[in-house]
């Protein structure tokens, strides 16, 4: 156990596009699996076995290694009732914890709010990606969103500015200084601009402070997780990181696509945790992987279509590794509309992490009390 008590840190990795459960944790000895997927099933001898029924996708070796070290919890059959099987709607449901109405407040935004009620640290929650996912959207909660850490910042790309950038930024800061008599909105803009500049300055120092022997791959997900590591290790007070990878929407030509997706993601995860280990900084970090739903049991010829029940993962030193929940039955008579029936509400998954790792009250964050699992 670490001797220093550090703040808990959550890394949310969203697998966008609906990752295929059946080919991720594979029921490789199940006859129904092979019957339903003549073209898309993973050969029995390629699977990385967990036991004599289930195994990891062959391209997930780094994650399997972490699983064998007891650091990965596999959450079976996750989802919610009456999945609309629409990417957008389903992702919104995962982001807002509102399966029945259109929600606008993000669960992760509420987490950030509860971790830093005064909103003092604009870097408490950091998203690596474009725009701001709805999961992080909550009025009054500042979240920093970085699409490229190297070039992040105000006026970072203006033609003709070049070497004068520092001087231009100082001018920008003065342009946004408090100005008497210009009104409430101007004041607000001024404050917002100055805070953004400050946040950008702070976060941009992270790469300079970072050194590591780990050589991450040159893939977008590896870059994102390396940026998470760099900002985390720079000790800026960030407690929630959010990023995504995709697209897992493998309707067409699933086998080669899924290979690359999981190779890239797994290697990035492996390198990330190795990086944390090298810095002796892994104990308080926990990573959640989720996707908006799983995919159909029967293949469509070259790929799979939208399903319902899916799989989620939690990875970290605090995790009590193993499998949790029940793999939904793939017998045709047990399916809903041809899909795996979810049996575990995703809000319980969030609740477990929010309460047991972050020490927050999960009920207002996920909108109710849901069954927690003992993976931490």
């Amino acid at each position, binding site marked *: 156990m670490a001797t220093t008590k550090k703040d808990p840190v959550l890394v949310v990795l969203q697998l966008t596009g609906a990752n295929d459960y059946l080919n991720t944790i594979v029921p490789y000895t199940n006859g129904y699996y092979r019957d339903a997927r003549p073209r898309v099933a993973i050969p029995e001898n390629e699977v990385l076995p967990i036991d004599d029924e289930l195994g990891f996708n062959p391209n997930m070796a780094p994650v399997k290694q972490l699983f064998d070290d007891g650091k990965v919890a596999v959450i079976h059959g996750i989802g919610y009732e009456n999945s609309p099987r629409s990417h957008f709607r389903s992702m919104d449901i995962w982001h807002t914890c509102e399966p029945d109405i259109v929600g606008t407040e993000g669960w992760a935004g509420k987490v950030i709010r509860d971790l830093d009620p005064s909103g003092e640290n604009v870097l408490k929650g950091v998203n690596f990606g474009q725009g701001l996912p709805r999961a992080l959207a909550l009025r009054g909660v500042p979240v920093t969103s970085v699409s490229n850490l190297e070039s992040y910042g*105000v006026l970072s790309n203006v033609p003709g*500015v070049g070497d004068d950038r520092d001087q231009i930024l100082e*001018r920008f800061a003065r342009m946004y200084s408090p100005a008497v008599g210009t009104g409430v909105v101007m004041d607000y803009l001024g404050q917002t601009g100055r805070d953004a500049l400050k946040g950008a300055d702070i976060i941009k120092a992270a790469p300079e402070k970072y050194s590591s022997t780990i050589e991450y791959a040159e893939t977008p997900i590896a870059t994102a997780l390396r940026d998470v590591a760099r900002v985390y290790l720079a000790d800026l007070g960030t407690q929630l990181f959010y990023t995504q990878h995709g697209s897992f929407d493998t309707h067409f030509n699933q086998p080669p696509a899924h290979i690359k997706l999981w190779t890239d993601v797994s290697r990035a995860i492996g390198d990330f945790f190795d990086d944390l280990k090298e810095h002796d900084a892994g104990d308080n970090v926990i990573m959640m992987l989720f996707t908006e739903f799983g995919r159909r049991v029967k293949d469509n010829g070259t790929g799979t279509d939208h399903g319902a029940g899916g799989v989620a993962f939690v990875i970290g030193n605090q995790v009590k590794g193993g499998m949790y929940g029940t793999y939904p039955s793939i017998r045709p008579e047990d399916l809903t509309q041809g899909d795996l029936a979810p049996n575990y509400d995703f809000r319980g998954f969030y609740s477990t992490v929010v309460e047991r790792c972050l020490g927050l009250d999960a009920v207002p964050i996920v909108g109710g009390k849901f069954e927690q699992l003992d993976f931490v």
Partner: protein
Amino acid sequence: MPDKQEIALMAHLMRRAGFGAPREELEARAGNGYEATVEELLHPENQAPVDEDLLYRFMPGYELAGAPAINQGEWVYRMINTQRPLEEKMVLFWHQLFATGNSKVDNPPELTVQIAMFRTQGLGKFRDLLVALAKNPAMLYWLDNNGNHMGAINENWGRELLELFSMGVGNYSEDDIKEASRAFTGWTIGTKIPRAPLGRYLWNFEFKPEDHDAGQKTFLGQTGAFDGDDIIDIVAKQPATARFLARHLYNFFVADEPQVPSWNITPPNDPEAIDQLVQAYDDSDGEVRAMMRVLFNSEFFKKARFSHVKSPAELVIGTARLAGSYQGPRPGFDKLALEAAYQGQELLNPPSVESWHTGSEWIDGGALVRRVNFAANLLGDTSLPGVHSMVESIRGRGALAPEEFVDSCLELVGPLEISGTTRHELLDQAQTGGNLAWSTEAESAESEKRIGVMLALIAASRDFQFA
């Protein structure tokens, strides 16, 4: 030649009634006169529509496209390239008011159909627009009226029609909502053709008489065997409707009001302005064009300079038009649409039927950085046609002293009004380089670079966030 005041007023009109206009256009329009320009804007049918043959020939994937970003991009193309600025601005207004989101509808071309309907109905009778909206398939699905049945009503559409689209909270009862919902039973979408194997087909409005509750209803104090048309007729005649619509038009076109949910307790900032717009509604039997005529010609409008925080759409489209970077069919409209999404306004996908929060609530740290960077990157790029033309215009004014240099830039970008703080910094920046010089190639290159940086600073200013 129109004077500075006339140009400034015309710039204000074009920013609000459209997406801004470059200097030459402002001079031409000011030359025609303000009222004549307002009339021209109010009659888009007299200008050429977007040339769809040209658009779809270059971008065949844009016609009935499936992907959200392409549908958004198609609309962005129209906003930038339209010859009918007010028609297109009204579309944005109605989209923000009748917020329908692709997250649930999951049918981008169907949303494009709704947008096209706003284009044709947007300046006509409000009553007619509400009927078209009630029969619009995307709306029927979005607010569940296809699940509103005789004997088992679904109140979603009935409620939002009254609460968000016409009268506003506090002007009707829960019973009125129920009775309205009964009236709309049977208004549904015909059987959908599945996507496989032939691809997407548009949905169709269908009236199912066997599912329609044709019984007596009491709605807002009147009794009859009302159907949806009748409900809308009654609603359109309510003073609360005229008032609510007037306030929305004021909030979008004149000056930022507090957020809509507080409107039943917070009075308008300018009650007399609202009264004038309500009068225009009453005098014209609820015609939006008539209200806009009164609005644009009013003193309260003309004085409301820079009192509106640009929405992401206005910022992105306006700056792209100014920089002259997206005229005519070319790749990149979907990226522009994505930029608006990253700034907080994903076209065709408002977060809920309550729509985006506008005014200062468009701005948070992340959005501000994106807005500043986007605008500065465009206006700082002197290779773009619109920016280049500003450089040439300044070159034509000779060896400008710092103050004239700054003023020229502000004039060409707007004209833009700025605060003392901004002016101080821009002047300081101009002074570090001395007068602009154009006698040698090296001097010209340096001057051009300085102009680019100055324009970028102006684009990055707080003042630029306002229209």
